[in-house]
């Protein structure tokens, strides 16, 4: 009993911080989301109900944000994981300069998001002086220039997906190369002696062995992509609604602090909708992985 008390005492600082900065705000979000017509200045509201959800789910800006976010998730998560796996396989099969290449592939991870955004602007944004590097390439092959930053929706979405994939890849490569390196070499030796074709070695040995890591990356990838916001800001500036490139988290932010801000109730409702989506997808993911990850 005495030891028990001591244990709680050690945990106390962390518990206090978590309670004040996490648990209380979480509860608050739930409360805000059902308070109709809440005014943050006067701290008053008209009544309790689901009007905030009703409003948010009908708001075309929110629906646009959900659509953008879903497209982003569906495209970037599988693509970045697949590409990272390919690159990791390449990295672990070379011997010379392996460390150097690993470092190069990891560099984007330590680079500031906004700095990377700047580079992408140079690549994609047409200015008074230049069409942007990518457009120069397109022109070279005979295609017409495309405005990737202020142009058609698919062009902007392409840049956003490209950017997101580029940003999340290094971490995935890092995780997957170490997962590949931790597979016992003896499996490959036995497989080789048994004349196993390379593709079968990959699908029957390598993939199952690193499947826990792949599922980890997919789940964190989904969550990360659903929470995307700063990437869009880095590319399209702060007025994302005008650009039609807002994300769910961006919408929440706008509702709190943006030009149309000052509506914590709407923001809370939107955040809870996001929470429900992420919770559902993560649960589905875990159920699927329980069936397919074997040990």
């Amino acid at each position: 009993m005495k030891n028990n008390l001591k244990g709680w005492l050690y945990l106390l600082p962390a518990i206090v911080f978590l309670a004040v900065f996490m648990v209380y705000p979480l509860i608050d979000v739930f409360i805000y989301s059902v308070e109709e017509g809440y005014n943050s200045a006067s701290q008053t509201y008209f009544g309790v109900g689901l009007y905030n959800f009703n409003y948010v789910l009908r708001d075309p800006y929110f629906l646009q944000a959900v659509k953008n976010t879903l497209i982003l998730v569906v495209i970037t998560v599988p693509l970045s994981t697949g590409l990272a796996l390919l690159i990791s396989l390449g990295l672990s099969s070379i011997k010379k300069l392996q460390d150097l290449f690993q470092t190069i592939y990891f560099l984007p991870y330590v680079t500031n998001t906004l700095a990377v955004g700047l580079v992408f602007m140079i690549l994609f944004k047409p200015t008074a002086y230049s069409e942007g590097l990518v457009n120069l390439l397109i022109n070279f092959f005979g295609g017409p220039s495309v405005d990737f930053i202020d142009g058609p929706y698919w062009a902007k979405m392409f840049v956003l997906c490209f950017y997101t994939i580029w940003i999340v890849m290094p971490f995935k490569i890092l995780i997957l190369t170490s997962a590949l390196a931790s597979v016992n070499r003896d499996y490959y030796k036995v497989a080789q002696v048994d004349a196993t074709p390379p593709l079968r070695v990959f699908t029957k040995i390598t993939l199952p062995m690193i499947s826990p890591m792949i599922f980890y990356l997919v789940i964190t990838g989904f969550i990360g992509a659903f929470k995307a916001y700063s990437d869009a800001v880095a590319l399209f500036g702060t007025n994302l609604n005008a650009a039609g490139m807002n994300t769910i988290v961006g919408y929440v932010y706008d509702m709190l602090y943006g030009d149309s801000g000052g509506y914590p109730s709407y923001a809370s409702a939107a955040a809870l909708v996001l929470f429900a989506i992420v919770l559902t997808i993560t649960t589905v993911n875990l159920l699927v992985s329980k069936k397919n990850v074997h040990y």
Partner: protein
Amino acid sequence: MKVVLDHLTKIYPSRTKGGSPVRAVDNFTFEIPDGKLIGLLGPSGCGKSTTLNLISGLEAPTEGKIFFGDDEVTNLPPEKRGVGLVFQNYALYPHLTVRENIRFPLENFRGKDKLTNEEMDRRALEAAKLVQIEGLMERKPAQMSGGQQQRVAIARALVKMPRVLLLDEPLSNLDARLRLQTREELRRIQNETGITTVFVTHDQEEAMSISDMIVVMEKGVVRQIGAPQEVYDDPENLFVAKFLGTPPINVFRGSVKADKLMIGSEAVLDIKGVPDGDITIGIRPEGFVLKENGRFTCELGRVEVMGRDTSVVSTHKYMDGVSVRSIIPSEDKVKPGKAVRFDLKPSKVHLFDSKTGERVYYEVKK
């Protein structure tokens, strides 16, 4: 299928800059007779695992040739050699069931060798029956004991009817009791299949108990090849004599003076055929006969009763090592006191050159 190793040599480049290259296997020549069980024996780093890898093709020899029967396989990649391989950690695929693990090599067959599903199941079951795990076919490796996993690994290696079966420290991960049981099992399986088998171990008891022949290696060099009893009774050098036998052979610094074998001032044996001079004497623990007026005197340490026989631990000034260990029948009682006296059995006393460690043969003077 006999396996011929012809002047097999493997040299690794030095790991440190400017260091000399390592000769992991040095000029290994041996013809493994068809259908025999061969134990490659030696301390760690002696090149026994490298030899196994050379036979399997996982490593290429620097020099020398390997033949399976009359086919040269030296430049054949491992997948074309038709060997079965079992590792110390079994290397079973953890996500596959026992059946899937055993079937795995069969599913790799392509072209005209391709088997039907039923045929694969039949052969997998046959292999499982051979190692007596046919009741566990749907289990995953993690749900089995170490001994059972080892059987699955052997079944997986046997299912494709390999020309040669290679086992790398197959029993090292098992506990003592299971090891004893599994090694008998290994012997039985090898007898039933008749597949030429090479296994690597650092445990001399393991190698001696089940091998038809043992190969003792030290630092990449083969020190002796022969039937286990023959190698034990007739070691060609001090290394082999010391490496085989538990408790190990007792080594003394002695000399030969006018046809008498001397340890200190005592003449312990009358011999002929050895010139005078310093000599290293190895005496097996069972080479001591307790005798009141024996010719060899040791300082008595303690007596360990082991039931079937008695182990006498004593010390001697000219001993190499800590204590002299002699094993005598339990009927012989050691009288308490400072000294214990023995006569020596000449067949258990081996002489070695003090400098080279090579065996010096002698005759007993009647």
